[in-house]
């Protein structure tokens, strides 16, 4: 099976080298595709120097639009499996193997790497944790399966899911929303326990007020997705 690893990157010139190096080492059979989402820094140049394929977006589309560009590439170049892998270094290359196993054995159309399947393994900030709990509860009801880490961007899609994502992939909260859309398409999903690195540098701007606002928006997006026509 040919595997494409889609790495969305926005101003990641610092971490992209390590990401590509790790992926080459642990998933040598896969092609690495960087999607540079309109970075202002040298992300594209650094990745090209390492010999990775780079899709360079002319301006910032946001995570949804960037990841979808990767799925379009996977679809057009006939890849069987596409893995989503963050460019900031929080995902761990040696975990990819576990992630694609349910697809290779034909059990699922999409597999999701979950930080929380192994309890106590990952320490998220309290408000983030609460938000993730609430999404998990709502999504588990909608999808009829346990979802422990709905905001995880560490995923793998088979040909069926690639084809669907290349046509329609949500822009606003793609990780959570895409699960609802896949469910409406009757696709099978499976969570896989996956370790992730905890963010070392700052950037976590989650305050109580903001996280409530964020949760409300995501929950609304979920309910709108339930009303949406998908094909």
């Amino acid at each position, binding site marked *: 099976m040919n595997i494409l690893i889609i790495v969305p990157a926005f101003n990641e010139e610092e971490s992209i080298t390590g990401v590509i190096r790790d992926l080459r080492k642990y998933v040598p059979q896969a092609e690495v595709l960087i999607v540079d989402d309109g970075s202002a820094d040298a992300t594209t140049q650094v990745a090209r120097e390492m010999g990775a394929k780079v899709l360079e*977006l002319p301006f910032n589309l946001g995570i949804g639009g960037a990841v979808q560009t990767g799925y*379009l*590439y996977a679809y057009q170049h006939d890849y069987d499996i596409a893995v989503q892998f963050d460019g900031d270094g929080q995902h761990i290359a040696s975990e990819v193997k576990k992630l694609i196993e349910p697809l290779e054995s034909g059990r699922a159309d999409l597999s999701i790497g979950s930080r929380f399947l192994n309890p106590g393994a990952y320490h998220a900030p309290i408000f983030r944790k609460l938000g993730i709990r609430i999404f998990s509860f709502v999504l588990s009801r909608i999808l009829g399966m346990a979802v422990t880490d709905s905001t995880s961007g560490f995923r793998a899609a088979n040909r069926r899911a690639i084809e669907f994502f290349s046509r329609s992939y949500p822009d606003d909260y793609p990780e959570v929303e895409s699960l609802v859309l896949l469910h409406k398409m009757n696709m099978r999903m499976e969570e896989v326990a996956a370790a992730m690195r905890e963010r070392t540098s700052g950037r976590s701007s989650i305050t109580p007020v903001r996280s409530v606002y964020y949760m409300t928006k995501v929950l609304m997006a979920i309910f709108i997705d339930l009303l949406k026509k998908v094909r």
Partner: protein
Amino acid sequence: MDLLKFLAVMGSGALLVIVVELIRRGKLKERYSLLWLFAGVVLLIFSTSRYLLELISHALGIFYPPSFLFLLAFFFLLLITLHFSVVISGLSEKNKKLAQELALMRQDLKNAIDGNAIAIRDGAGERP
């Protein structure tokens, strides 16, 4: 004709003339102009005939006829902003598709150029 009526007719007439002129010069697409033309015509009708305005207002149970005009204007603005939201959504979707297509084509082009460079090195391929 009283001054108020004169001003109202002039105002709604001016709106119609401006809309038509914008369409004529190609600055406003016909498909976006229908609502504006409709608004201009309705305003013109009510400014020429206060009787009609009063008749409809009373039929609807509105005591103060001008407030019926405000209501109409409010609905019109609501409708046109909704229309704009739909148009903007469509445009941003198209914009996203264009950006994605551009990124994919750049990569395909780079592949083709690199492939040709290798072919030249190996004694085949077309020299630019």
